């Protein structure tokens, strides 16, 4: 069927092919020279020198920028190219020495972008693809690649859940296009679709990309619109991130060594009550206890207990618990790579080691990784290669944000509580012993330091092998086989000293092993031809199969002989265990055709058919077509004379993509096993839904690419509308059915937005200055969920007509000036009875004639905020002067709200004994007439502790995200010490944060709730982000 269609052009090709075979062996001449940078005059090592028209005759410059090449007589042009510089063609003529000065590349339009199953020149691309080069992200002292590109791509929103290392990061490309299915993009690394689901088992997602050493990355291409992404069909609704790793270039082997060392600390901290304030506030709160005055013996007894007998009346102990949660964190990274090769074989080999400590105590991340990328030309027609990476990561984790054991929850402990057990003989004076205090209000998780272990070790192997064969000079067959293998071993052990938190008096241990194997194979033909003069066609067609299997075993043991034994094997009692297996597969056929007339009129058509094991037989396959067109107006005669406009392209695209990122068996009716004591049984767990099918997103994109003043200013403007329908929605069903949700195709949502990218070359020459700016607006709206109420997080909801995840709760109205009660806006019409009995009233001096109530249940819930930003973006400036360079990136997020789920404990009008934020003391209502947002302090009074806008705050921020200041040793010096490059640099990440956010850091989404799409913008004792400063040394030789 499909075969026939390709056989005909193949036969054609053979005829053309035969003409090329009759060339005779020719004479050669030797050309030598030096390549330098035009701006600095420094020699450039590693510049590729190719003989134009030849099948791969070429070399590369050595460490001093010198080259030497034999050129057969029939060729007369050399091409010099180097990343970041404008390629230059030189006609040889009679010359034997050719010295070349390469201009730095001020325009990005001729860059090559990776489009999925191939690559294209950016100028000719009709879809929207955002590229980040490896240079931009290499040596940034962050934990993973997403953090490294944060703020650098329009339409790509990156948000880490908190400041723990190895922790999950949310990436949204052009908004969330689903409610219940995943909204994370598809990651493809060197052609292998990665499994990016996380394997955490403490409820806080980990980052599946943290296993990747991003210094190996050559480029990241983010496919945003349907035309670009639809080639990945059912996997592409959330965009596709294509990661290409570095390859070698022929020439002398280049070594590159990089070492970085530095430290991290938290971006922001919060103010808590000191001991004196705590006592004053809680004495007052006790007096206001609704059941009677508790301010005497009762509260003093509590203080005696919290202070472990130390003299709280005279401020004997004043602990800063927040400070205890953090540590001085060191960071060390070491990379060594070698690349080179000859005209047959090129390679890139690298090894790296990085060791990071978290800003939180007990948190660290270590990664050791290696990579081999190899390309080999067997003969003129056949090329083989492999990209192989191996990594081992060791993550010492801490509990999720909702555990007493997470360091941040230490802030809840009263400041009068000593950190160490007091010496009993010295009481009431505080003489700390070396025993950590175990008689604290909540578990003192500092005890975990020596008594607990929570370590996750990953082995991650991502690799592929490919073969490419020229069936003719315009038909290429490529086959790839790839594997993404993760083996994970998680070990947890808690000894008897921390039984208070674990509930296991004789120790508790877990061991969990997960193997997730994902193999992928794809085969496709690329056909390239000029149909006639100026009519160019490139077409691909092929198929792909992916199979992913996940196996897990887990065992839990208790009762260890003593605290020295830590393996589950030592446990007397096995108290839990399981072994499970699950799998899914995709089978896909894809094709794409790019046509252009003279590089001026561009057209791309693509189609993909995807089959997924997740759906029933009738609904297994989906069809995903896309079309796009571009018009390079600047090539038209009527614009040719216009000096200002050097490049102008209009493009439009439309296509359909899909999403199937849901559970593996959602369409089947299932019974699962269950256990009652020692007997096993079965239980219904899922009602079948044979109609279940893909979620589909239709996306329309209009864009303009432009270059002004000889491309000194370039940019892109895009407008898009993404409409998702047949949402794969976990629909709430009435509980009386015995079920709570079913995955159905129900509902629609829309994302529309605007993106602007501007790059300008402000100054060239000795002082070089470039600016890049990106700006994105995305408006998400749930257009139809059939009246469903779908909840997530604390108060997040999907509400028709609102953005996904809006905060839906009661609207807090402050403290009733009359009596200090927490009051809420009624947000509905009051009944006469409510007005008569006084539960509903007006507080004119605060809220005019709006009705308020002190009855939490009586107030209506309304949309009180939106976790989605109004706009996001980044601004980067690069300066270069002589050997110095400075790179400054600002990143901003504006208009989003954050809900602090921990507010009901932290800022709760002294409802319970948790230490309070300072505003609860300074701003509290104390006497009639006080106008304030902090209700009267009432112990056990629940005065305003329900979910309401009291705990909502503006999450906008502007951040000095990244600063790198470097110095490159001049070539003259280098030569004397035999190096090709030496650079010293200082890097900083998250150096400054400007925000009104009341909590720690506005880049947050509490980890234990961050799994779903609705649960957005929540904070719960979430660690702030790390501010990191490193000093680095980069040497090439």
């Amino acid at each position, binding site marked *: 069927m499909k075969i026939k269609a390709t056989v005909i052009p193949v036969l054609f090709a053979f005829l053309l092919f035969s003409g090329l075979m009759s060339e005779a062996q020719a004479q050669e001449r030797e050309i030598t020279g030096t390549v330098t940078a035009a701006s600095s005059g420094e020699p450039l090592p590693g510049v590729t020198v190719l003989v134009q028209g030849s099948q791969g005759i070429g070399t590369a410059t050595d460490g001093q920028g010198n080259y030497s090449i034999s050129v057969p007589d029939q060729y007369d042009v050399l091409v010099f190219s180097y990343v970041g510089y404008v390629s230059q063609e030189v006609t040889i003529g009679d010359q034997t020495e050719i010295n070349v000065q390469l201009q730095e590349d001020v325009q990005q339009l001729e860059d090559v972008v990776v489009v999925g199953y191939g690559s294209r020149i950016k100028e000719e691309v009709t879809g929207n693809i955002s590229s980040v080069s490896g240079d931009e992200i290499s040596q940034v002292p962050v934990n993973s690649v997403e953090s490294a590109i944060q703020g650098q791509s329009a339409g790509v929103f990156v948000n880490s859940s908190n400041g723990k290392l190895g922790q999950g990061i949310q990436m949204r490309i052009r908004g969330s296009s689903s409610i219940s299915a995943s909204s994370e993009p598809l990651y493809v690394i060197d052609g292998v679709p990665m499994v990016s689901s996380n394997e955490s088992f403490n409820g806080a997602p980990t980052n599946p990309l943290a296993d990747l050493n991003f210094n190996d990355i050559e480029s990241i291409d983010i496919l945003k619109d349907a035309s670009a992404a639809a080639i990945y069909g059912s996997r592409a609704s959330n965009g596709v991130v294509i990661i290409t790793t570095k390859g070698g270039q022929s020439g002398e082997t280049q070594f590159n060594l990089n070492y970085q060392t530095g430290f991290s600390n938290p971006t922001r901290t919060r103010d808590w009550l000191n001991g004196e304030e705590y006592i004053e506030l809680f004495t007052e709160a006790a007096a206001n206890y609704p059941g009677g005055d508790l301010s005497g013996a009762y509260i003093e007894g509590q203080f005696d207990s919290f202070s472990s007998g130390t003299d709280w009346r005279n401020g004997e102990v004043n602990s800063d618990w927040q400070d205890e949660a953090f540590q001085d964190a060191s960071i060390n990274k070491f990379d060594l790579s070698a690349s080179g090769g000859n005209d047959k074989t090129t390679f890139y080999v690298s090894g790296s080691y990085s060791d990071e400590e978290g800003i939180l105590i007990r948190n660290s991340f270590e990664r050791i990784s290696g990579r081999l990328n190899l390309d080999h030309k067997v003969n003129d027609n056949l090329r083989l290669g492999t990209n192989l990476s191996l990594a081992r990561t060791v993550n010492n984790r801490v509990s999720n944000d909702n555990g007493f054991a997470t360091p941040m929850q230490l802030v809840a402990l009263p400041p009068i509580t000593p950190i160490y057990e007091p010496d009993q003989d010295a009481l009431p004076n505080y003489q700390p012993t070396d025993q950590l205090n175990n008689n604290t209000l909540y578990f003192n998780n500092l005890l975990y330091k020596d008594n607990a272990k929570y370590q996750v070790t990953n082995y991650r192997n991502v690799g592929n092998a490919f073969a490419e064969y020229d069936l003719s000079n315009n038909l290429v067959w490529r086959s790839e086989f790839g594997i993404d293998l993760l083996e994970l071993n998680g070990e947890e052990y808690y000894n008897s000293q921390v039984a208070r938190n674990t509930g296991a008096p004789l120790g508790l241990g877990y061991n969990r092993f997960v193997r997730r194997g994902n193999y992928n194979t794809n*085969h496709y033909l690329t056909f390239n031809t000029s149909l006639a003069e100026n009519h160019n066609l490139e077409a691909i067609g092929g198929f792909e199969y992916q199979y992913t299997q996940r196996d897990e075993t887990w065992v839990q043991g208790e009762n260890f002989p003593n605290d020295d034994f830590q393996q589950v094997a030592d446990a007397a009692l096995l108290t839990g265990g399981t072994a*499970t297996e699950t799998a899914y597969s995709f089978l896909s056929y894809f094709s794409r055709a790019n046509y252009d007339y003279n590089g001026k009129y561009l057209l791309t058509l693509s189609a993909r058919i995807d089959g997924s094991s997740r759906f029933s037989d009738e609904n297994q396959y989906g069809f995903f077509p896309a079309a796009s067109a571009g018009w390079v107006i600047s090539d038209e005669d009527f614009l040719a004379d216009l000096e200002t406009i050097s490049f102008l392209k209009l493009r439009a695209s439309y296509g359909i993509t899909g999403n199937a990122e849901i559970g593996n068996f959602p369409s089947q009716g299932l019974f699962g096993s269950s256990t009652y*004591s020692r007997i096993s049984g079965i239980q*219904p767990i899922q009602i*079948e839904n044979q109609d279940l099918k893909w979620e589909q997103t239709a996306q329309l994109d209009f864009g303009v690419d432009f270059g002004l003043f000889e491309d000194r200013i370039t940019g892109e403007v895009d407008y898009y509308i993404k409409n998702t329908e047949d949402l794969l929605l976990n629909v709430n069903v009435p*509980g009386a059915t015995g*079920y709570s949700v079913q995955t159905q195709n129900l509902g629609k949502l829309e994302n529309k937005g605007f993106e602007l990218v501007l790059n300008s070359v402000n100054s060239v020459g000795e002082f070089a200055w470039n600016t890049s700016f990106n700006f994105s607006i995305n408006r998400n709206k749930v257009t139809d969920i059939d009246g469903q109420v779908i909840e997530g997080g604390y108060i997040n909801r999907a509400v028709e007509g609102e953005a996904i995840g809006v905060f839906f709760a009661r609207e807090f109205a402050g403290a009733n000036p009359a009596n200090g009660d927490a009051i809420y806006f009624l947000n509905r019409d009051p009944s006469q009875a409510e007005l008569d009995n006084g539960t509903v009233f007006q507080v004119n001096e605060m809220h005019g004639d709006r009705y308020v109530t002190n009855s939490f*249940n009586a107030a209506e819930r309304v949309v009180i905020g939106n976790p989605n930003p109004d706009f996001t973006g980044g601004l980067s400036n690069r300066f270069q002067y002589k050997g110095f360079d400075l790179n400054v990136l600002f990143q901003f997020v504006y208009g989003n709200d954050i809900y602090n789920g921990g507010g009901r404990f932290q800022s709760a009008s002294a409802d319970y004994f948790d230490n309070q934020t300072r505003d609860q003391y300074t701003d509290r209502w104390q006497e009639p007439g006080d106008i304030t947002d902090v209700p009267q302090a009432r112990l056990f009074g629940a005065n305003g502790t329900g979910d309401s806008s009291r705990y909502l705050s503006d999450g906008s921020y502007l951040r000095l995200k990244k600063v790198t200041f470097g110095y490159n040793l001049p070539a003259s010096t280098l030569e004397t010490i035999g190096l090709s490059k030496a650079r010293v640099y200082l890097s900083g990440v998250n150096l400054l944060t400007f925000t009104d956010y009341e909590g720690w850091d506005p880049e947050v989404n509490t980890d234990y709730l961050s799994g779903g799409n609705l649960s957005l913008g929540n904070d719960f004792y979430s660690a702030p982000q790390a501010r990191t400063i490193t000093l680095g040394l980069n040497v090439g030789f």
Partner: protein
Amino acid sequence: MEYSIMKNKLFLGIFAICMLVVTSCNDLLDVEPKQSISADQALDTPQKVEAAVIGAYDDLSSVDLLGGTLIYGSDLLGDDGSVTWFGTFSQPDELWSKTILTDNSFVRDVWLQGYETIDATNNALSALDVIEDADMRDRVEGQAKLIRGIVYFELVRFFGRDWADGDPSQNPGIPIVLEPTRDFENPPTTRNSVEEVYTQVIDDLTDAKALLPSSIEIDNTVLGNTYVASAYLSRVYLQQREYEDAGSEAGRVINSGNYSLTPLVSGAFNNPTNSTEDVFAIQVSDQDGANDMNTFYAGSQHSGREDIELTGFFDLFTGLFDAADDTRDDFIHFGASFGGPLTSKWTNFRNGNINIVRLAEMYLTRGEASFRTGTDINGVPPEDDFNMIRDRAGQEDIDAADINLDYIFTERYLELAFEGHILHDIKRFERSASGFAWNAPELIFPIPQREIDASGGDLEQNAGYGS
């Protein structure tokens, strides 16, 4: 050149073969679950149908039902000053302070887990035809109905008004569902009356009583028998103020000869296997089962959180009770973390069975029934039943003349405290809890907000919980 074309053909051939192999293999997309089975084959053998009943027990034992909320939820919502909630979980706190919010997730989960259990029993009952062996069929049907009856009874008394509070035929109860759910076309969204639910409960329990044998035990796991059905029927009749029936069902349990009081109060609790006194207990093993009473009541030395302190409990030992000698007064421990007094009824986190019905309750029920009806049910005068309990606790015998409702209420509380009886007893005795009258709307769970929402607003909310 010949060679090249040969090679091209060869490669093209390989490509074509690859393609054909892949396209012809539709089973590349056939991936079946490994840990679960298709619903079509789930209930097609007698063993599988019986396994579905075990699944229903597992549901029943969850921390949302008898393993937790149904027990401590009654203790907290019905508390009249005996305990103080000190924990940080706001959901139980709302129960204790009688200010339940409609989105209280513990309350929501009682509803969800309750109906999940009911659906599990309905599944088993729908497949009885598969079982040809009559004994086995009776056993399966009896247990399914026992569990269903228990769950409906527990749900209706938490989510509906008390039987004697107004007209039970008019008061909304909960939806009755008797068929397994096969789709979500017409989900149940209307509440049957309290009376209808009680009728269903009595039907189920009466059937169970007739169908079940006097003992079922598999692998050291004791399942419900005919006396469990009677014991629950005695609770149902008590709640309906049908004292004669309540007394005779309790008497049936007492007279069965299956059970005897443990010599010491402490012997009745925290046992890895049923004590002689356990009529019905949720079975917990090292590997399976959870117990939220332990979580909230016990001291940290017993893996608990020390959330519920016995602040006012000891004040009850006055009048006809001698605190000094009462072993129930002593059956406490002090929390290792906060030092407060805590009940010792729930201190075996690992494998203690969860007492649901103890023989002691049956004596108290029969005694009360005899007293209220003025007859000696089973020929036993009420003081004899009460003295069974008092003797064991180290108290002096009580005289018939001293027995009155206040005494009975207090004796029941001292004996059955922290075992989930108090809320329902306050309603039965028409007393009050921390100032809330027995029929106050605050002492009834709200219909969970999620249920109102999922029903599109069709499900009626209880009074006192907003619109």
